[in-house]
């Protein structure tokens, strides 16, 4: 799918391609945690919002269990889709209305999606989903969001999503606002959901360390393009795309020796990168070739993952490889 944002004033705005021909699929039978990683402005959140129906793609569509859910009009259909696909948001303190009690959202879910007939059964369903995240109803009944800690609130948010037993969770930066020491409890929770309740999770983050810890597959995004997509160990332990290499190299490692080798070149002109015709990384790529400047690199399948780079494309290999690099 593709998403072009119309930026700028009321009448003559400039075009900005936030997401450029991204396509991927999740296997219904095999629950999986798929990560979309990238810096701010890489379009990873836009992908998530398109799947959730908060943004309509300019072209391409979202197919859920065989049904095209890109443009849902009828409310009944929307409810059915939302029952199966639930979001988890970034800021726990903003996820809940500060003026309403936290548990009201859980009962709202039980009510609107009719997960059960009688009131007791609904209460039991809510209690169950709270237990699956390690909380009890008594703990959060009648409490306001500001009376709970960030970690607790995020757990309640996950519990809210689990009330309707969804099969796919879209988590947009779920742990970036949670304290480092509590972060792992939420991350472990996602892994547990996958194994125990076979819920697939689309994990959107800029924190590659947590991504490595829990996800099965990862897609690295840069300015709207998926530059590398494949199995987590292949992509993160032996990255092919130059951008992934620099990204992984720049992540500070929590052990004293893991300091960075040499300096890197920082580009100060982000906006130009967006409108670049060829490869979006041409500006900063140490292996940039003339072809990278204007020709969009193709997707190449190379040892277990897809990479979008001219270095690995077949027809380039034998003709121009010899030419010295531009930068």
């Amino acid at each position, binding site marked *: 799918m593709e998403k072009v944002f119309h930026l700028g004033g*009321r009448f003559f705005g400039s075009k900005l391609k936030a997401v450029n021909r991204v396509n991927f699929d999740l296997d219904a039978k095999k629950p999986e945690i798929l990560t979309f990683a990238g810096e701010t402005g890489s379009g990873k959140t836009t992908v998530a919002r398109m799947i959730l129906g908060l943004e309509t793609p300019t072209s391409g569509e979202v197919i859920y269990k065989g049904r095209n859910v890109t443009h849902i009009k009828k409310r009944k259909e929307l409810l059915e889709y939302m029952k199966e696909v639930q979001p988890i*948001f970034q*800021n726990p303190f903003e996820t*809940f*209305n500060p003026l*309403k009690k936290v548990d009201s959202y859980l009962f709202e*879910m039980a009510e609107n*999606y009719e997960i059960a007939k009688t009131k007791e059964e609904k209460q039991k369903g809510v209690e169950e989903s709270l237990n699956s995240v390690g909380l009890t109803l008594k703990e959060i009944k009648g409490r306001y969001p*500001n009376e709970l800690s960030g970690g607790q609130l995020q757990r309640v948010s996950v519990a809210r999503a689990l009330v309707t037993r969804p099969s796919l969770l879209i988590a947009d930066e779920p742990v970036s606002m949670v304290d480092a020491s509590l972060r792992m409890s939420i991350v472990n929770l996602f892994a547990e959901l996958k194994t125990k309740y076979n819920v697939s999770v689309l994990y959107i983050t800029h924190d590659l360390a947590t991504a490595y810890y829990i996800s099965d597959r990862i897609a690295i995004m840069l300015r709207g393009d998926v530059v590398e997509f494949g199995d987590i160990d292949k992509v993160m332990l032996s990255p092919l795309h130059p951008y992934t290499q620099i990204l992984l190299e720049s992540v500070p490692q929590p052990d004293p020796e893991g300091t960075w080798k040499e300096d890197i070149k920082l580009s100060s002109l982000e906006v130009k990168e967006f409108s670049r015709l060829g490869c979006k990384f041409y500006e900063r790529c140490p292996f940039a070739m003339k072809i990278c400047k204007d020709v969009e690199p193709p997707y190449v399948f190379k040892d277990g993952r897809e990479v979008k780079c001219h270095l690995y494309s077949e027809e380039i290999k034998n003709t121009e490889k010899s030419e010295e690099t531009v930068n």
Partner: protein
Amino acid sequence: MFVILKDLLKRDKKFLFGFTVICILVFLAILSAFSPYDPRSWNVVPKDKPPSFQHLLGTNSMGQDIFWNTTHALKNSFILGLTAACISTIIGTIVGLIAGYRGGVLDRVLMSINDSFIVLPSLPILVFLSFFLREKMTIFVMGAILSIFSWPWGGKQVRAQVLSLREREFTYTSVFSGMNMWKVVFKEHLPFVIPWVIANFINTILWALGMEITLSVLGLTSLETPTIGTTIHWAMQYQAIFRGIWWWMLTPIILSIIFFVALYMLSVSISEFLDPRTRLQRIKMGG
């Protein structure tokens, strides 16, 4: 509701002043029902008597007792203010909600009209309008006319509130919790919009009364029904100041000063108190 009232009275001096003054004025307005004299008839009492025990605020050159006349003036002014405020708040909130939620072309159209009404100088047009409706002018008609120019301020504020609320994360949480649009609006967003609506309601009363005084001084309202404006008009007409009948002119002036300042204090303290940020702090204090 009473807890909040007690809370406010204890802590916020502005509210204390505003609330007590408004209560006194309301009491006076109610008192008008027991007035021995008919406000419309003249020469009921001896003319131009200074304030005395018999006539608390003295009498005017039209032979009316100023005290009882003022109670009627208050009643009519309250009615006028409330009608103007109700009409314009309803229109403004609806326009604000539609523009805020619908967005797109409708939002732009509504907002351009809204902004035009704000920029337009309302007085000449109001004068022009009430000049033509002079024969049919009653308090309610005057209220409706005034609301033509007071609804855009409310609309602009409500729209700004709605636009910011729509982007907040808890709106998406409620949408994904299966709540339909109306439920989201009334259960999630209204508690945030209400403080603005109330503060705006009071400001509209303030504006409407100010405008009423202006139009009555120009002689464009129904001059026989007593309001603050018409009392000033007759006082000017009979050159009260020249002839030294100071008490006739003084009552409406002091009355309007207290009335307007009290209303303003009330609107400032209410919007401060009900503003979610401070309310949130109060909840945190277990207040």
